[in-house]
């Protein structure tokens, strides 16, 4: 496929005796929303950690925008254009909301120590620009009114939104979200869904881990299902949803019915 943004082959990670991720192949097409689902402990978050360089893969090949790469180091991966959020929210707690987003712009900006010390005009312009853009992003995710709160003062759901804004600040080609809807109620999920669709329509490619089947099936163009580290199904949501193996391992009766 020519419009494949990220392609992964044979991704494997072992923890002691446990193979958390087992020869996973995954292709993410440019401009789509790809879902990664599976029962708890299937290895989804581990996949994220592998792609973003937090864990070192035991095996696996990666291609991003047509180039081979190996995710050694999270910072390099970030520079490459892959941003993520964390399942257990990891915000910069002592920074304000807007500052959190400004950190997200780290790779987008360049002022160094000297420029900062001398307050060069270029640095001041950059700062102003970053702040403006950050506020815009906060507005985009709907928490602009809390811009000057500390990140730790936000409620759970707002913290999730902030994480998304911070990741968006990195202007990533691929945005990987680990359970963004966790802890949100139905109507909040609807708002999130709109947000995600908007992000996608603004040209970002999304990789989404989410347990809310309605949400996943509603917005993803392809879905990969993991179980015990292995891919058990892959394809269009409508088809995956009917896969007996997926129902058995993941969906259970309730969602099957609804």
């Amino acid at each position, binding site marked *: 496929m020519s419009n494949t943004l990220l392609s992964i082959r044979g991704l494997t990670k072992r923890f002691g005796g446990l193979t958390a991720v087992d020869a996973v192949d995954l292709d993410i097409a440019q401009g789509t929303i790809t879902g990664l689902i599976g029962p708890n402990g299937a290895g989804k978050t581990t996949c994220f950690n592998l792609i973003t360089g*937090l864990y070192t893969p035991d095996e696996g090949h990666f291609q991003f925008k047509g180039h081979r790469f190996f995710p050694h180091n999270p910072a390099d991966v970030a520079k490459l254009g892959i941003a993520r959020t964390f399942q257990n929210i*990891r915000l910069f*707690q002592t920074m304000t909301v807007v*500052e959190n987003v400004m950190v997200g712009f*780290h790779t987008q900006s360049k002022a160094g120590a000297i420029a*900062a010390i001398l307050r060069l005009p270029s640095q001041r312009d950059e700062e102003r620009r970053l702040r403006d853009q950050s506020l815009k992003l906060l507005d985009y995710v709907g928490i602009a009114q809390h811009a000057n709160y500390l990140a730790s003062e936000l409620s759970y759901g707002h913290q999730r939104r902030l994480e998304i804004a911070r990741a968006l600040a990195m202007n990533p080609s691929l945005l990987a979200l680990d359970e963004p809807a966790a802890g949100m109620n139905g109507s909040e999920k609807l708002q999130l869904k709109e947000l995600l669709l908007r992000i996608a329509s603004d040209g970002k490619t999304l990789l989404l881990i989410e347990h809310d089947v309605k949400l996943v099936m509603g917005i993803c163009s392809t879905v990969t299902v993991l179980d015990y580290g292995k891919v058990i199904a892959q394809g269009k949501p409508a088809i995956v949803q009917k896969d007996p193996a997926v129902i058995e391992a993941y969906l259970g009766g309730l969602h099957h019915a609804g």
Partner: protein
Amino acid sequence: MLVAVALVALPWVVGDLGNSWLRIVNVALLYVMLALGLNIVVGFAGLLDLGYIAFYAVGAYLYGLLNSPHLTDNFEWIAAQFPDGLHVSLWLIIPLGAAVAGLFGVLLGAPTLKLRGDYLAIVTLGFGEIIRLFMNNLNAPVNITNGPQGIYMIEPVRIGTIRFEKTVHVFGLDIPALHLYYYLFLALVLIIMVVSLRLQDSRLGRAWTAIRDDEIAAKAMGINTRNVKLLAFALGASFGGVSGAMFSAFQGFISPESFGLMESVIVLCMVVLGGMGHIPGVILGAVLLSGFPEMLRHVVAPLQEQLFGEVLVDAEIIRSLIYGLTMVLVMLYKPKGLWPERKGRNSPSHTEATT
């Protein structure tokens, strides 16, 4: 503006009370430089450094060696090169002190990058001790540091033709050297303060805070944590180096005992007690902790004499006791320091908005 006038006038006011006060102020300014430097490492980047005084030592020895007869006395080839002795200009020594100490900062920082929290503390502590021990022992086989005896007859600061010695005639004024040191130190403190403030409120400063709050998330933001941490070590160390060089000149004598572990600990206390990461707080902490015991010195014994007609309990005991208890009490009542930063809902701007 008022502050500026006050700062300029200070030595003349204080000097009238006695030069010891001015000396205390000068020493306090040296500590402010140190504390601001450590604040970058501990306060901004959250790296607990218990060996910070090593950079102070490096700066001090650099100045001491380059401005005293020690090297020419011990190394003939140096004496041959510099028949009039070594006299390195202030304009050279300050950047040099900053640079060399900064280099040491990077050397020290490099192996600690992988370490977290308190492991970092002990490794830096170890490095600090190693530096001190080297200075204490490098008098043989070649006498580089003169070992425990330290370096004598270090020349005072010289700017152009002005030597900071006794009383100096400048602009038709008789200015005591202590006053000149005050202005020099004050200028350096102001520079360091401005540099700190600007760094804090910059891309780099945010990267430091990000690392302090959550290193993994910081990495995921594309921050090269290794470089950014090393930069913190280097910048923090360079302030320490400048302070050390000034100490050396001011004191005229340095020996390894001035650079022990407790000194690192005290500077850390200044940073935390004042309000870690908050520059005005850190300055307050440094001024208080360095000035406080000296203030007690002027107060405890006379007060006892006034109250009881005699000194009942040795002044120095009361002094240590108060010093120790103060640290505990300040932390108990102000766990974030005396003057912490206020951000978020509790920030001044927010409280203003609500009232």
